[in-house]
């Protein structure tokens, strides 16, 4: 076999084309849809405590999502975005990480944040944009962030967090922290230029980053296959950038746990960036502003309902004796009560003081901003009824 010495490339003398069938990427599955294990599967490291925590977090998020969609319908919050169907992907991946690892999400990873310990009160304060919200009420609902929990604040523009994750991980590596960054995004965001820049740079710099793609089938109304991409999903792109890549069943908490545990080891011990493509389905609409009946069928939704990640995990846990119906029901009732209580409480908390309007634009407000705030307050004093959320406390 002749080789080009400089590039170590095999030389051929007849055209040899490659296409999407040249590389076929399988999907890792450990827990079958019927709730039993594949017999020969490589298992993740786990114990009862870990699996119960994963389960309870998934259940918590599902209840929170249900209640908050209802709250939006009632006009109590302006907007909501649910993660139903994708709880295993965000929760079990977060469970494979060290607490000190950074999480950079897109906007459907409330499960990872809950796993880290974000409280129901903290969720509510953000959703109601009140003065207890860590983000000071400035962003739309579900744009969470928490420095104490190493969860970067969410930004709506798609894909912007992906190259940021590469940069963050570069810093972690240089500081010898022994930590990594996980970056979540959807298959739609993987079309953005930022995705390609991020993977290429991570691969060139060899940084400890885990790119976790939640391939949930839809970007708002645009179906993944045929309209978002015509290749074999997102995974082959990782290989193209010279990166360790795996495709997994995103509705199988054990596959998610196993793949992310291995990815973390590769990232932290070998400085290998990793791409995980988790195959799943967005069971809810894109957001409360979206109605999926306009672009997909009930049959398709029913097919995926049968693969539900929470049902599947519960089946296995019950067979194992790690969960019983009473626990599920008690936990459900307990979470629901907590969510409702927090909702009622947060609703009553006022929006931040109007002085907060000019804070954090820079490290300190500029003189011009202070002047603009003074003018605004003078104006509000003239028309207190028109600005009722803030006019009650201007001093």
């Amino acid at each position, binding site marked *: 076999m002749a080789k080009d010495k400089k590039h170590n490339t095999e030389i051929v003398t007849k055209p040899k084309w490659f296409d999407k069938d040249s590389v076929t990427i399988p999907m890792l599955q450990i827990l079958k849809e019927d709730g039993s294990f594949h017999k020969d599967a490589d298992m993740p490291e786990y114990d009862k405590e870990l699996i119960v925590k994963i389960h309870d977090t998934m259940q918590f998020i599902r209840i929170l999502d249900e209640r908050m969609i209802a709250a939006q319908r009632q006009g109590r919050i302006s907007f909501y975005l649910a993660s139903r169907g994708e709880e295993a992907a965000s929760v079990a991946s977060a469970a494979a990480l060290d607490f000190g690892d950074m999480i950079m999400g897109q906007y459907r990873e409330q499960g990872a944040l809950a796993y880290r310990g974000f409280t129901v009160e903290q969720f509510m304060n953000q959703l109601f944009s009140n003065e207890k919200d860590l983000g000071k009420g400035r962003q739309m609902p579900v744009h969470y962030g928490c420095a104490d929990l190493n969860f970067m604040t969410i930004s709506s523009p798609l894909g912007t967090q992906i190259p940021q994750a590469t940069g963050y991980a570069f810093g972690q590596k240089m500081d010898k922290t022994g930590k990594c960054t996980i970056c979540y995004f959807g298959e739609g965001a993987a079309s953005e230029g930022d995705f390609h820049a991020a993977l290429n740079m991570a691969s060139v710099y060899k940084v400890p980053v885990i790119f976790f793609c939640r391939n949930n089938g839809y970007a*708002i109304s645009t179906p993944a296959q045929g309209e978002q991409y015509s290749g074999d999903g997102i995974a082959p792109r990782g290989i193209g950038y010279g990166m360790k890549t795996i495709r997994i069943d995103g509705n199988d908490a054990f596959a998610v746990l196993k793949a992310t545990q291995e990815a973390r080891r590769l990232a932290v011990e070998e400085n290998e960036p990793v791409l995980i493509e988790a195959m799943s389905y967005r069971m809810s609409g894109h957001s409360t502003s979206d109605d999926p009946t306009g672009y997909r069928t009930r049959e398709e939704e029913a097919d995926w309902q049968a693969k539900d990640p929470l049902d599947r995990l519960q089946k296995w846990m019950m067979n194992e004796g790690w969960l019983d119906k009473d626990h599920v029901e008690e936990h459900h009732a307990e979470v629901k009560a907590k969510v409702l209580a927090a909702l009622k409480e947060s609703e009553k908390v006022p929006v931040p003081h109007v002085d907060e309007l000019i804070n954090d634009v820079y490290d300190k407000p500029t003189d011009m*901003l202070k002047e603009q705030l003074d003018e605004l307050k003078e104006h509000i004093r003239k028309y207190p009824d028109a*600005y009722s959320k803030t006019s009650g406390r201007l001093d």
Partner: protein
Amino acid sequence: MAKMNLLQAINSALDLAMAKHDNVYSFGEDTGGFGGVFRATSGLTEKYGKHRNFNTPLVEQGIIGFANGLASQGSYAIAEIQFGDYIFPAFDQIVNETAKFRYRSGNEFNVGGLTIRTPYGGGIAGGHYHSQSPEAYFAHTPGIKIVTPRNPYEAKGLLLSAIFDKNPVLFMEPKRLYRASTGDVPEEEYTIPLGKAEVVKEGKDITVLGWGAQMEMIEKAVEKSEEDGVSCEVIDLRTISPWDVETVTQSVLKTGRLVITQEAPITGGFASEIAATVQDKCFLYLESPIGRVCGIDVPYPLCHEKEYMADHLKIYEAIKRSMNY
């Protein structure tokens, strides 16, 4: 005539443009059979096929780069960016490519057939990333026209002009008014010239100028000022770039006073550009400083949206300040 809201007027303009020429294409994120997140393109796939009205992958720089190429080939490319806030990945394609295509090639090539449609503006609880008014970034770039309508009638006539104008146009749609603004709109094709402001209401004491959704705020403010006995002349700029200096300065020479309002933050906004030109051309005629009623210099906030907005009460106060100067 038919009663239409602003979205229906835009849809009607797109429909007529696509019916007129086979090489008019409409595309963007979710704009295919689904009709876009605001439904501006609904029905177009059924009528003209999925090769003329279609979904793009989720990549704004790709959408505008593709549109530049399609327009340079001689087709009419109508590209939707889902929200004005998401136009920035395409900034390079717009600023360095769209706007310079003709000039850099010595007119060997051009992208005159390109129209970029994008919803802009706040007042819809959209927070930082569904509320911005990015016109000034683009007004700083010679080579692209910027147009924004205030109501359904204007939207249809201006959009048809934009699509067939021989220059690339950024067409900014006031999304707060998409369904809120309704009016009588001719069902057939008509155009409203680009680069021409409209004196919406004549008056003699003060000129009040704006564009897009701010025209609704001006209307309410002026109503209140007129109750105080102030005669206001109201101008809709309609085209932000290149703007109609003549109509604006003629009005200010008459009234001697000017208040300009925009949704975007005050610093570096297009109101400042207008103020600079007007003081240059009307200096000795001005009775008071030119007033600017704009957003505050902070990212568009969710919880303090009401406080942030350049609303009718702030415009009314600015008119009063100018009159009492």
